[in-house]
């Protein structure tokens, strides 16, 4: 499903964010990515949806070599991947509902299915009462939930969750983890970057730990 082969990422000014990272993630796996602030977790995820290019090495996602993927086909790749961005990346001029619907519309979902799927996920995350609110009218945690809803709603092949519980209280965090486990159970490959070791320990899944830009452990 996802293969990293000796991937190195150097940002400008010779800042080596990741070095010689290799791993393989099978379809249906649930993997945590751990590492402290600035370790390179987000960078790793960004390379999967081709927001950043690796400086060296090969990345394969859904049987495609990303380096060979044509620009015009990037949207197609991204539509198969759900991403919960660390900084949410909500569309500021759209309501909560429209933000979630947007993720479905780009995939040409039929209006009928769209409404159904959307209502389902909003109810599930207890966001329905804020449906018509714009992002600036939401609390930090509510915004994060919208970001989660948007990633989940289209039942992606791969789900990338970058620190999805940073702004959520303990109870909500646990709920989100349960949602992720649930969607994983239904077949979606899940990668979740987090520094919250407590959560990871509870769940007992595979964990990639990044330290000083290198893969320190894979257990």
């Amino acid at each position: 499903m996802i293969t990293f082969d000796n991937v190195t990422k150097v940002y400008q000014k010779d800042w080596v964010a990741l070095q010689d990272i290799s791993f393989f993630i099978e379809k249906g796996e649930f993997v945590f990515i751990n590492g402290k602030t600035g370790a390179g977790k987000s960078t790793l995820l960004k390379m999967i949806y081709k927001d950043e290019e690796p400086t060296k090495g090969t990345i394969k996602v859904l049987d495609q070599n990303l380096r060979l993927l044509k620009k015009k086909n990037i949207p197609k790749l991204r539509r198969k991947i759900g991403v919960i961005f660390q900084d949410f990346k909500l569309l500021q001029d759209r309501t909560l509902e429209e933000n979630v619907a947007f993720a479905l519309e780009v995939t040409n979902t039929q209006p009928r299915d769209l409404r159904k799927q959307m209502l389902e996920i909003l109810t599930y995350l207890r966001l329905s009462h804020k449906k018509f609110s714009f992002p600036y009218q939401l609390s930090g945690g509510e915004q994060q939930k919208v970001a989660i809803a948007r990633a989940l709603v289209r039942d992606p092949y791969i789900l990338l969750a970058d620190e999805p519980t940073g702004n959520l209280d303990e109870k909500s965090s646990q709920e989100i983890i349960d949602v992720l486990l649930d969607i994983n159970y239904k077949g979606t490959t899940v990668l979740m970057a987090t520094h919250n070791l407590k959560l990871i320990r509870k769940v007992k899944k595979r964990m990639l730990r990044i330290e000083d830009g290198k893969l320190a452990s894979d257990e």
Partner: protein
Amino acid sequence: MSLRIGIREGVRTITRNASLFIMSLLVTSISLFLLSLFAFVTVNLYHFLNILDEKIEIIAFLEQNADYEALESNIMKINGVRDVIYVSSAQALKDLQAELKETEEVLRVFESNPLPASLRIKLLAKFRNARGLEEISDKVMLLRGIRETIYGGELVDQLKKITGVITTFDIALLLIIIFSVVFVIFQTIKLTIFARATEIDIMRLVGASNTFIAIPFTFEGITQGIMGGFIAFVLTVITKRVAVSFLSDIYFPQGYFFLGSILCGIIFGIIGSSLALRRFLK
């Protein structure tokens, strides 16, 4: 993307960023108005030059007691002649006096009438140039009863020269203004799109194709063009109303101006938004 979604997205793009849209619309309207205003001046200039052109004629002086009616019908048969008007000797003096009175009153000094009767020959448009004049004049000269023809060859040359200069100048100005207007509209649309660069980036990250992103903005560009063109047209009509009050003879083909404004608006809107989007959709 279905048309329905395209339009809905476009409407949202406009309404949710109303301030941006209005600012950009105002710039577009004013720019198109300037263009329209200039077209208005140009049209009237040509209208005026056309009236001058109409005045080009050949004067054929008749011999004493020539049969002017026979001559008239003969001349009418010449290719390129549109009309022939007979001016008697008495009339000619009156005309000349009337005409010169305003410039040099010298001719009051005359005591006898030295002016012969004449035929004023009006030409079809495409003969109203030095060559056409000469050609027809030569043919007229062959007729019996004609003493002399004059056709102000130099006047025509002068007129054509002035028309040429004015036309060149006018076209140059028109090009400058068209260029400026297109440029300003383009840069303004770019600014409004730039202000939403973050939103566009997010759309791409969520998997929206270039078309999906472009359609609402293009829709916005077209809407802006149509509305801008309409506002420009209204402003031009107002200008025309005001102009009429102190310039009597004003030419204003309203229908063409309406269509022209709207069309220019649409074209500039499409071009502007497409070009502006290119930067973001590489």
